[in-house]
């Protein structure tokens, strides 16, 4: 875990309210890990957790949606600007062999790209609210990409759980809204396919020290930042 100041290489809008931020430097993150990110002094006070979208020899990138003040400030960054990073943090996706399905809903696709790139032969299911984005990028690193869109603006009309069937997979990794993850848990359980989910919680420290990011699991409260963000779905208490 390092605390570094990185330079912005690029910060490109890839869809309405969605940006891809690339930072220069050498990083050691594994797929599914995240960084605490900031590009401001004390307002807002806290850093924002963002999953690693991609990493290579030249740098690291994050895919983020503009939600509030922090991500709005990130969206204004230009090449050469400074960004504070703490990380890599969290456990990342498990390293399993076999046929893996990656399922992402909305910005839940962010932690799946680097996983697909490392896995090489994964099937990727992407669910968008409206027009899809980054599908070609995923297609370059995945075995197959299937896309859904709630408005039918591209891919199959509906949500990502409509196009995903767990049969034949050795494991499934998913990230997205809680109802989507809970629905996936039901279908994967029925098919006896192990499901791992990347969860979100409000974070202050991001390193495991403040106990602010608690989620309920069958073992009691766990820290999303330290014990996760990836959890076996079988351990998560969904109505938590």
């Amino acid at each position, binding site marked *: *875990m390092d*605390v570094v100041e990185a330079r912005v290489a690029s910060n490109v809008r890839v869809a309405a309210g969605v940006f891809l931020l690339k930072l220069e430097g050498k990083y050691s993150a594994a797929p599914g890990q995240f960084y605490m990110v900031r590009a401001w002094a004390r307002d807002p006070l*806290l850093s924002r957790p963002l999953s690693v979208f991609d990493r290579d020899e030249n740098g690291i990138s994050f895919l983020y949606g503009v939600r509030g003040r922090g991500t709005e400030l990130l969206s204004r960054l230009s090449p050469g600007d400074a960004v504070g990073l703490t990380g890599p943090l969290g456990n990342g996706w498990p390293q399993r062999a076999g046929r893996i399905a990656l399922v992402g809903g909305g910005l839940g696709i962010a932690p799946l790209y680097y996983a697909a790139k490392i896995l090489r032969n994964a099937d990727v299911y992407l669910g968008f609210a409206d027009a899809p984005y980054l599908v070609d990028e995923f297609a370059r690193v995945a075995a197959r990409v299937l896309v859904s869109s709630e408005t039918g603006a591209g891919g199959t009309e509906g949500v990502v759980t409509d196009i995903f069937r767990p049969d034949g997979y050795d494991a499934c990794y998913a990230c997205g809204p809680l109802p989507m993850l809970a629905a996936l848990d039901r279908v994967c359980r029925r098919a006896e396919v192990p499901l791992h989910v990347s969860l979100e919680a*409000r974070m202050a*420290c*991001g*390193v495991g*020290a*403040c106990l602010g990011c608690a989620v*309920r699991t069958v073992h009691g409260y766990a820290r999303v930042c330290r014990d996760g963000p990836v959890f076996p779905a079988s351990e998560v208490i969904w109505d938590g």
Partner: protein
Amino acid sequence: MGDMTVVVGGLRLKNPVIAAAGTFGFGAEYGEIYDPARLGAVCTKGLTLRPRDGNPPPRLHETACGLLNSIGLQNPGIDAFIREELPRMKEQGITVIANVWGDSPAEYEQAVARLCDSPVDAIELNVSCPNVSQGGPVGEDARRTARVVRRARRACTVPLWVKLPPAGGIAVARAAQEEGADAVSTVNTFRGMAIDIETGRPVFANVVAGLSGPAIKPIALRIVYELAGALTIPVVGIGGISDWRDALEFIMAGAHAVQVGTANFVDPLAAVRIVAGLERYMDEKGIGNWEVIRGSAQR
């Protein structure tokens, strides 16, 4: 070079910068970034006799220059702390201050007795957590505070600090002093709240949560100034300290040492940066020891 050491209520610290309870875990996490033994001391997460699950999420809410938390003293219990965390901390050379909470004077006494049999360097009695009891914390009432400190003092052979809430006032601090506290530390978080305007309901299940961070600094500084002027035992200053300049203000207000809490979240290196900043300040101003400037604002 100036002498950074300071003696606070029977405890000798290599420098006056302490990691505040609940913001630094047991030192293991930030220990991956720097050696916590570089700090004057580390206050542990609030410990209780029995393990506690803590409050249901959400537990955090950001405010303008502040942070509301409702952790609810989630901790593994004193026995597990002594068995699993303390040996590692001592091995690393960390000066350990055990922050302790009890839900009755008897429980405080038992908890303190248990810790006194362990190699902790000092105990900080937390009579000021806003997140675990209905109504105000014990430390907002002089008589209840006196009762708790008396029982704890009886059980305690190591330095005993009492961590006071912002709303306790001088009467409570004097009660702690009279019952034998070696020092007081203040402030704990202010009782605050937030409302979710979509649902119209309080953000936190407990309604009330604790406010910390830069937003509270001027008020915390005023409280430390008042207590330092009124007490004969040392005061440890806490509240919104983000850099060495903030730390100096608290020392000039009369604090013997300071604690750094929320700033650790803003910059994981905040506490060691404050140590370095104070060191530089001493050198540049040619200050030999803290007594030269401590309480300068009182004079």
